[in-house]
């Protein structure tokens, strides 16, 4: 976590004496930030005031320096206790009072020290490694008997998100869902972020989690171009997106519709099955691309650009394609494993995959949810991914406009 924090209490005649102003000025001048969490002002001059201030600094060392500087002015660290641990009673079973995580940065207090929880996601448990002071967020099914699990709320703190330095659409940190708002500036901001992430190494990867509507609606060429240009490093999709993308390459159709003619082609409904069958015969999507059977499109670009692809299965799947993970817990684990280092997530035209991805993303990752149906971004926000910017828009239009912002001539 980039920030260290401590809660301090300041009380007495702190307002007229300018002691509160001095403490806040000191925090600010030393390079820290603060939130005044609670403020009770004395009713008359002789009544004391009381305030609780959360002090944050970019490093633990600076935080200590700030706390040492404000302590003589009466700002005392709030009394805090260590977190409570209980062993997991059996594999996959958590202690009754386990702490359930949010997707916000979280710390637990061990032997008086605040330790960052690694791999934070919503709805997980927190497990403390017995041999080192390493703390991980762990899904319920992955807990082993005897794992030391955090229970209750003592010694656990959640760090609110800092406002990003960039003053763009993500700075508002709230889901905006409306088909009646102009979205040009949102696309401009997304494009700016993507260019920064691509051009400045170490800033993070871009994840696109998408549904087959991208292909049906005509966003395939734009997405392939974005991948070819190095703007996307991770793709989450289902069997269908990959199948229809390659169907388009082999047959020029998507679910039997001619992509250029715009109408159903005789026996077109068989095309995706024949595509899946052909790839199954070859053995993998990668081999199909490298052998030249699949030449263009999203999957071809992913193979050529070494994009991390996680294809997850569903009950509705035909085939499925080789590489599609049909064990849902294994698929969840594969998605989770691909997430470290993500700096921007685009969730496009897939209700269930968008929510699944949103559940795995920490709140610190700027996220955009694009769907023609306003209920999808709303649902995502309702399930806790409050940081996601909702965009009510057709998938193809979104990808084309985004690609054009980034220089696509299509």
């Amino acid at each position, binding site marked *: 976590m980039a920030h260290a924090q401590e809660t301090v209490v300041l009380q007495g005649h702190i307002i*007229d*004496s300018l002691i509160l102003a*001095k403490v806040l000025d000191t925090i600010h001048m030393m390079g820290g930030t603060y939130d005044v969490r609670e403020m009770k002002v004395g009713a008359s001059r*002789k009544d*004391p005031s009381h305030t609780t201030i959360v002090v944050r600094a970019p490093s633990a060392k600076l935080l200590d320096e700030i706390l040492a500087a404000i302590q*003589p*002015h009466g700002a005392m660290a709030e009394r805090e206790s260590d977190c409570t641990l209980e062993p997991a009673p059996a594999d996959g079973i958590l202690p009754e009072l386990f702490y359930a995580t949010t997707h916000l940065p979280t710390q637990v207090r061990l032997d008086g020290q605040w330790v960052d929880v690694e791999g934070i996601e919503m709805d997980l448990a927190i497990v403390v490694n017995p041999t080192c002071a390493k703390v991980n967020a762990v899904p319920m099914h992955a807990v082993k008997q005897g794992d030391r699990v955090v229970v209750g709320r003592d010694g656990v703190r959640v760090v609110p998100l800092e406002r990003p330095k960039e003053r763009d659409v993500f700075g508002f940190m709230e889901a905006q869902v409306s088909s009646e708002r102009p979205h040009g500036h949102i696309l401009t901001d997304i494009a700016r972020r993507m260019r920064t992430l691509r051009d400045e190494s170490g800033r993070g990867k871009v994840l696109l989690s998408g549904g087959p509507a991208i292909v049906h609606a005509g966003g395939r060429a734009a997405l392939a171009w974005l991948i070819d240009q190095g703007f996307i490093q991770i793709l989450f999709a289902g069997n269908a997106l990959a199948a229809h993308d390659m169907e388009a390459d082999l047959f020029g159709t998507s679910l039997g519709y001619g992509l250029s003619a715009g109408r159903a082609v005789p026996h077109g409904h068989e095309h995706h099955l024949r595509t899946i069958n052909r790839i199954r015969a070859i053995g993998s999507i990668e081999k199909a691309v490298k052998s030249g059977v699949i030449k263009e499109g999203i999957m071809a670009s992913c193979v050529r650009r070494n994009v991390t692809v996680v294809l997850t299965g569903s009950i509705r799947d035909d085939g499925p394609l080789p590489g599609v993970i049909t064990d849902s817990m294994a698929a969840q684990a594969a998605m989770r494993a691909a997430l470290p280092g993500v700096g921007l997530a685009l969730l496009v035209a897939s209700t269930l995959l968008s929510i699944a991805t949103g559940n795995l993303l920490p709140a610190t990752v700027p996220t955009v949810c694009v769907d023609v149906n306003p209920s999808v971004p709303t649902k995502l926000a309702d399930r806790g991914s409050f940081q996601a910017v909702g965009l009510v828009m057709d998938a193809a239009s979104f990808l084309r406009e985004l690609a054009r912002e980034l220089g696509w001539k299509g």
Partner: protein
Amino acid sequence: MSRLLVCPPDYFAVEYEINPWMRLSNRVDRERARAQWYGLMAALEEQAGAILERMSPVAGLPDMVFTANAGVVMSRHAVPSRFRHPVRQKEEQHFERWFRAHGYDVTVLERDLYFEGAGDLLGFPDSWFGGYRQRSDIRVYQRLSEIFGREVIPVELVDSRFYHLDTCFCPLDGGELLYYPPAFDGYAQAVIADRIPEPRRVAVPEADALRFACNAVCIGKHVLLPDGCAETTRLLQTRGYETHPIVLDEFMKAGGSAKCLTLALD
């Protein structure tokens, strides 16, 4: 009538160094100190009309002579000091015993809440000021505010030569304030200026401040202050005060002067 607690300088000496004025090498001339102390007492009683309560000095406690640090008293309620330096903590029990023996209600502060009495807590009838950062802990002022039901405004002391509030801040009976602004940080200077309007603020020059001009005792129109503070004397006289310069240089060797040698009892 002003009643003041004083303690004869029988054992007064510089036996340790806990402020920039103290030098072990700068020995106290005890006879001279005794003569200066009696000079101050005579002026207090005969010229200012004060009533003096003398407490017994204790061997080995050289700073007990500075009774301003015994604690703080309002009406019949006393809060004895909690000294920051261990060498002075031994005085606490004697001051507490004196308050109890003389019928005061005594509130004892927590051990780690440093408070050096009327050396750091001074004020006007409606609001008190508490010096902190050098000796007293800012947190004590909330406790004292609760105990006495008064507003206490903490002010930060930033110059170690002015280590107690009473070395740089002296409320006068006419409502004026004699003080040395650079001893305070900017916030405290702003608060003092906000509470005490300009015509009532009397800023002493540095030369006088370093002679402890602000460590004065004011009783009605009488102000007893260290000798040699010509400008401060003039400023006080133009405001109608009767000034009484007292030679107290032996006590300056320990960083104290007229005010430090007295504690107002009511």
